[in-house]
Structures are given as structure tokens and as C-alpha cells.
């Protein structure tokens, strides 16, 4: 994902801002990392450049 996505993205549950932690970058692209809600503390993974912002119970249902 591009860092510019941070301008519009938010926590799917409570709509508060997310904080970005980058694990791996390639050019401008964030390949892996974590998005953490500044309010509820829930965290969402970024894998293969794609953030997964499913509600936690839908993300983990397998």
C-alpha cells in the first residue's frame, strides 16, 4: 500500500485514526506492517502490500 492511503483510512470498528508501523518497504510501497487503532488498540496486518481491514472476527474466522 501507498502511505497516502493513511489520509482516508480508519479503524473499521470505531472509525478512529490508525497508526502505521512499517516492517518492509519497497520504493514508496509498504509491503508489510501493522495498522493500529489509536483508540481501541485493535491492530490490522499489511501483507504483500495489502492492508487487511476486516473486522477482527471476520479476519480470523478460518
Amino acid at each position, binding site marked *: 500500500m501507498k502511505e497516502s492511503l493513511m489520509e482516508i483510512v*480508519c479503524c473499521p470498528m470505531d472509525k478512529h485514526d490508525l497508526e502505521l508501523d512499517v516492517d518492509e518497504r519497497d520504493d514508496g510501497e509498504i509491503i508489510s506492517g501493522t495498522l493500529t487503532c489509536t483508540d481501541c488498540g485493535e491492530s490490522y496486518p499489511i501483507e504483500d502490500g495489502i492492508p*487487511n481491514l476486516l473486522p477482527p472476527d471476520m479476519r480470523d*474466522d*478460518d
Partner: protein
Amino acid sequence: MSVREEFDAWAAEGREQGMEERHWHTARPILARIPVEDGDTVLDLGTGSGYALRALRERGIDAGYGLDGSPEMARKAAGYTDDDAVGFLVGDFDHLPFADDSVDHVFSMEAFYYANDPDRVLSEIRRILRPGGTFYCAVNYYEENVASHDWQANIEVEMTRWNREQYREAFREAGLHVAEQDTVPDREIEIPEASAFPHEGFADRGAMVERYRTWGTLLTVGVAP
């Protein structure tokens, strides 16, 4: 089965390509109607292969984001573009991970009726749209399109089958103005001679003509006040 499991399986089978090809017949004239401007941010809900955003980028939008509930589908979509201004994310219609007033236009093609709670999705869309932003909602699974009625039998995700009026009412209930409603025909799909029927599940030629040329896809356009 969950949306995620169902559509991860579709992506694994490569079904996003056939959908892109078929849906393009009606998506093209619908996308052409959206009054996008340079600098706009557009969201595609249930993006599949992501073709809609690629097409809108050719008209100069600033950024396009495709959301899909299937991680495999989002991965496929990401693989089909290397445009820096187009990005994909995994998420659920009912819980949109976008800030209030952050998006200029929302597009959704043959996806809205899979939502768990469609009224809630409309409220979410109303929340994230900037004033004057539009929601272009196209659905071929709807009440008046009788040929679509038996689709539920082939999919385990529960689908919502509203009629035209229910769409208008639900949009208004969510605080969106209804600017337009239209049935957009698929004029491109090939319909063989009468003697070739039954064909693709249609008993006769008339039924296939009605399905595609008359009912096509139902477009409802909402505008945030």
C-alpha cells in the same frame, strides 16, 4: 460459507476474469456517467479484478481504492495493475475503514447484494462521501430481473433481492438523495438464434433477450446532501 471463503474460492478458480469481461458490457456505460474530476478519490466496493478503477484512472481521477472482502481477490486485483494511484484493501461492506467525508464517488458493480446488512452499508457510504459525492450502485440480482431469482441456489452467501422501489427507499432512508434510477441493458452479449435454445439456462431466446437487453443491471445513483 463466509464471503471470504466463497470469493477466495472464486479467485482461486480465476472467476474474476470472466466477471470483468461480462460485467464490462454494462459497467462501461455506467462508469461513463460518473461526473469524475481530476483530483477525485473513488472507491470501488467489491472490486473483483479492479477493472473499474483502472478505467476511471484513464479519465484522470487522483486515486482509486478497491475494497474486497476476499484477500485472494484483492491480491488478484493488485496483480492486474502497477498504477501507483490505484490501491486495494481487504475489508467488509458493513464496516468501511474510511474516514467521514473522505471519498468523492463510490462505485459498486454486482456486489452490493452480498452485504450482510445492506441498510448499514448505505449509512456507511453516506458517512464516508463528501457533500455532493455520489454512490453508483449497479445490481443485476434484483426483483424485476426474474431470471436472477434462482441465483441464490448456486451460492451460500445470503443475497438481498430488493426491487427498484426498495432501492430508492433504502437510499433515502440512509440519507442519500436519489438522483437517478435506470435499467442499463447489456447490448453486447451474444444471443444465439432461437434454435440454439435451451442455452445458458434460458429455455428460449425471448427469456435471454429479456434478461440482458431489458433488465441488464439496475443502476441507482445516490448523492450525499
